[in-house]
């Protein structure tokens, strides 16, 4: 019995020591897809964030304080995200929270984030997320109003597409993207000749491919959510002999879509907020990331890596982790170069205002150009 008591005492002391040590660190939460269907993406996110943590800590931390991570699993679900946020906020002592990257999850957690009153750096691209009267949501990626602008502008001006066929998933992301794309095309004087929705996880795209073929479209614009759908659609397009230009949302260049579709996606175009060879920042990041993890990073890693450096910059300029001061400091960030482009926060909390256009060159994603938009006026 005595033995057990001593052991407990020892453990308790150890706990106190660790606790005391933790007080000196800056705690950052990460709401992450550790389990569930998006676990693969979640692993990239942890990699990206921990790479930044390691670099910052090695270089002396933030104001001499080391960063400590608290990863909370959201099981790739909306309720999981709400729970993870409640847990991290309830714990106290956390300066800011990163994640997640899915728009619907962020939407679900938005009231919790608002009540919690600490900055949340998110990666979802649904434009409405930062226009929700929630002062604590900051977006560290560009939003979809820009992706539609870039899709339309590049498709019409560079690819010379005149007759557009739009194919989109009927979920929140796909429908939102489709609406934005139609609006942007109209602004350029183009009305799509075919708009066709489909539900996620369709097993057969033959009717859609035939509709595209018969419409006589010369360019295809897509907002597709799931990579397997992209794979099946691309293969059937090729089989049924549809060879028109194709520009779409970033699922066209996801690692999974590239693997599943193979040559059926060659010579397609996509918008992307991260590519490995876009600029010096992304090249340096790619080098460090692939040295550590043995494979190239993608957007699931880059957004979190960038988010950590935004927090570092903001905490250093606020000289505090106090929520209100930190919020003001994030909003004041201008011209900070990072892996997602140049971070220029507007009053809504949107940090990035441009997209890259990339091309699938025999399975390799090649950077073509970057299109930047002025952030909304203050």
């Amino acid at each position, binding site marked *: 019995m005595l033995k057990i008591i001593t052991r407990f005492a020892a453990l308790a002391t150890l706990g106190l020591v660790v606790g005391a040590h933790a007080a000196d660190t800056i705690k950052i939460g990460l709401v992450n897809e550790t389990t*569930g*269907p*998006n*676990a*693969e993406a979640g692993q990239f996110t942890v990699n990206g964030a921990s790479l930044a943590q390691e670099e910052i800590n090695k270089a002396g931390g933030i104001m001499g304080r080391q960063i400590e991570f608290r990863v909370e699993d959201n099981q790739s679900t909306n309720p999981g995200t709400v729970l993870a946020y409640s847990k991290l906020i309830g714990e106290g002592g956390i300066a800011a929270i990163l994640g997640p990257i899915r728009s619907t999850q962020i939407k679900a957690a938005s009231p919790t984030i608002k009540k919690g009153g600490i900055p949340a750096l998110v990666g979802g691209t649904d434009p409405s997320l930062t226009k929700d009267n929630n002062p604590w949501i900051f977006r560290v990626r560009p939003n979809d109003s820009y992706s539609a602008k870039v899709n339309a502008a590049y498709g019409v001006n560079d690819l010379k597409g005149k007759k557009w066929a739009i194919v989109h998933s009927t979920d929140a992301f796909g429908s939102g993207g489709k609406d934005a794309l139609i609006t942007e095309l109209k602004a350029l004087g183009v009305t799509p000749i075919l708009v*066709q929705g489909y539900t996620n996880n369709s*097993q057969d795209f033959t009717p859609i491919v035939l509709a595209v073929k018969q419409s006589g479209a010369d360019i295809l614009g897509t907002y597709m959510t799931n990579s397997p759908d992209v794979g099946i659609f691309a293969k059937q397009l090729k*089989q049924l002999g549809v060879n028109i230009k194709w520009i779409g949302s970033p699922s066209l260049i996801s690692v999974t879509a590239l693997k599943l579709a193979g040559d059926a996606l060659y010579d397609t175009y996509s918008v992307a907020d991260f590519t490995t060879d876009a600029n010096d920042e992304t090249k340096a990041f790619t080098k460090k990331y692939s040295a550590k993890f043995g494979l190239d990073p993608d957007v699931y890693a880059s957004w979190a890596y960038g988010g950590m450096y935004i927090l570092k910059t903001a905490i250093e300029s606020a000289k505090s982790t106090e929520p209100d001061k930190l919020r003001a400091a994030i909003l004041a960030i201008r011209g900070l170069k990072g892996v997602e482009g140049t971070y220029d926060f507007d009053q809504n909390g949107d940090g990035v205002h441009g997209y890259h256009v990339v091309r699938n060159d025999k399975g390799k994603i090649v950077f073509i150009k970057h299109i930047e938009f002025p952030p909304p006026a203050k």
Partner: protein
Amino acid sequence: MTNMAVNMQVLFSGLALGSIYALVALGFVLIIRATNVVNFAQGDFAMLGAYAMFTMFTVLKLPYWLAFLLALAVMTVIGVIFNYGVYYPLRNRSFLPVLISTLGASIFLQNTVLAVFGPQPQPLDKVFQSQGFQVGGVFLDSQYLVILVVTVIAVAFQYFFFEHTMLGKKLQATSQDKDMARLLGIPVAWMIAITFVYSATLGGLAGILVAPVLFVSIGMGSTIALKAFAATIIGGFGDVKGAIVGGILLGVVESFAAAYISVPYKDAFAFLLLFIFLLVRPQGIFGEKVSEKA
């Protein structure tokens, strides 16, 4: 593209998907007949078959025919384990515990595969190198052709097996009346075990066939199983002919509805068909009006 060619193309893809529904539906029906229970893990047999094939062919790089046979062998083993792990301990209970047991098995199988293979879907090669060929404006995908041919063979084999072999007749007797079969000296427990093995293998075969088109993924079985289940009801609950006709009918209706009415509501048409059948002819196409088994 002429209208005729468009219709043929739509019909072709409808027939191919319908065949897959039919193969999975056949597995459903055999187990329903043998045990009076709907096996909720039937779709997962397709998923497991596809992963077994992926392991043998893509990971271990075995020749296609060997990988195919080994994958089917894996499915027979899974059928045995399923029978003794999921069904047998509950065989003397009512249908509900068994039903829930199969549901639990489905969740367990999906998560086990997730833990072993990860969440990323995987591509699988087609049986033939050729993508397919063009016949009068209609593109015939080689894998879709394989699916159609294998379904016809499987159905013919099944007919021969059940009608013209002693084992098949014993299986039929077991499914019609277990007590009577037992009195006649048929080892009922064995017959049910064989039924599970056969359904698991059939489900696995469907998964292997469809994987080059739909990719190997954890969720691949669930959607197919839902449609296949609808097909068993449309065809006549527990009727072998019905499963095949119901599956193919469902695939074709779905395909044409998507082409001519609405793509986003494609799945809704499949279930609308089910709904109409439940209202107008609840016993299905081939179902007989049997009130209760005596």
